[in-house]
């Protein structure tokens, strides 16, 4: 394994779960999420190998999300769909959990997934990056190429929608 492979391998290990989750939450399909994740890393690996000092990628997290985002856009454009409903479903729970606990967690996760899918694309992305992946407002602003203030507003509005939707589900 050469030095480039080793370096990229680290980037892969650090990001593969996040990119997969990001894709999965957008397409709600294990197979499509895997395809998009694979393609994201193929493109990133090509860029990594051809990287010259002048155009060196400084933020691989942002760069990978950009690729994944573009692929998702292409995917929706090709299919002409807003949401894919897939029969496949990835088990999310720890197998050691009790049945009752699994059922409760499943309902909780399904609830939040369902509510998240009702948000617009940008709001979904901002919520995933901010609250799931822990990206800073600045990083998100850089990925979306928008001012930090705009990202804060998107984030605030998305949280409001989520809160309302979750409350209505409970009631």
């Amino acid at each position: 394994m050469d030095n480039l492979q080793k370096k990229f391998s680290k980037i892969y290990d650090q990001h593969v779960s996040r990119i997969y989750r990001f894709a999965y939450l957008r397409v709600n399909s294990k197979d499509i999420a895997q395809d998009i994740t694979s393609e994201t890393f193929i493109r990133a690996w090509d860029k990594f190998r051809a990287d010259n000092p002048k155009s060196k990628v400084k933020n691989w997290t942002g760069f990978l999300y950009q690729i994944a985002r573009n692929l998702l856009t292409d995917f929706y454009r090709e299919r002409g769909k807003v949401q894919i409903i897939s029969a496949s479903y990835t088990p999310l729970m720890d197998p050691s959990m009790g049945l009752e606990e699994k059922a409760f967690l499943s309902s909780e996760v399904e609830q939040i997934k369902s509510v998240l899918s009702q948000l617009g694309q940008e709001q979904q992305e901002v919520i995933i990056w901010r609250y799931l992946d822990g990206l800073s407002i600045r990083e998100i602003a850089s990925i979306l190429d928008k001012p930090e203030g705009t990202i804060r507003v998107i984030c605030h509005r998305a949280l409001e929608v989520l809160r309302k939707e979750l409350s209505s589900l409970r009631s």
Partner: protein
Amino acid sequence: MNERNLTKKIQLLKQIQPEKDWVSLNKRQLLGFEVSEVKASFTDQILEVFKIGFNYKLALVPLAIILSLGGTIGLSQASLPGDFLYPVRKLVDKTGYLFVSKEDQPKLGLEVANKRLEELTVIAQNNQSKNLAPAINEFKQSTIEAADKLKPVNSLPELTKEIIKETEKFRENKEKIEALGVVVGDTEELTQALSRIVEIVEGQINDLNDRSLTDDQKQVLEQAKQDFEAGNYEKALEGILILSYNQE
């Protein structure tokens, strides 16, 4: 529902993970190697530590030290006795002895003494009365050191043109400072050492006088005598050296 609870709920989605087998297979297809290879070997980790040494940020530290040291030494060269940076200049001069051969040390000793005399001249010319006393002290110390370094010079092979040159320069500098009305005091040790240098030249001339020489050689010797009497010891030594080598 407050923001904290909402955030907690969102974070439940972290449970969405790709299948481990797929992650591993995908990586193998992408990079062409096994996942287990990813863990850096001990050797790699050691190499990584060395690589850090080449990191430009760390490289700046020794560079900054070298530059500041170089800058201090450079600035110190313009300092005079009594100045803040003068001890650095003295230290640089002293360090010089470590880098020259034993044969060159007498010359270096005289060079340092000449430097001290030149500093003294500058101080006297600029009426820097505060610096005068430390400058005289520095000069005296340098003459003692120069005399010490000149001790091994007892015959012609040890005597070089450079030593003679520095000796002449020293006499000129001393005359200059005395003309400015500065009394440098007793420099007997060096005076004696320099007299001995002159005696070596004189003794060599006398020695050559007693030898049988060709007409051309006699002419060279005559010129050397004239130079010696005129106080031009360097030229006199030049003639002596030519004759000495021809004799051998």
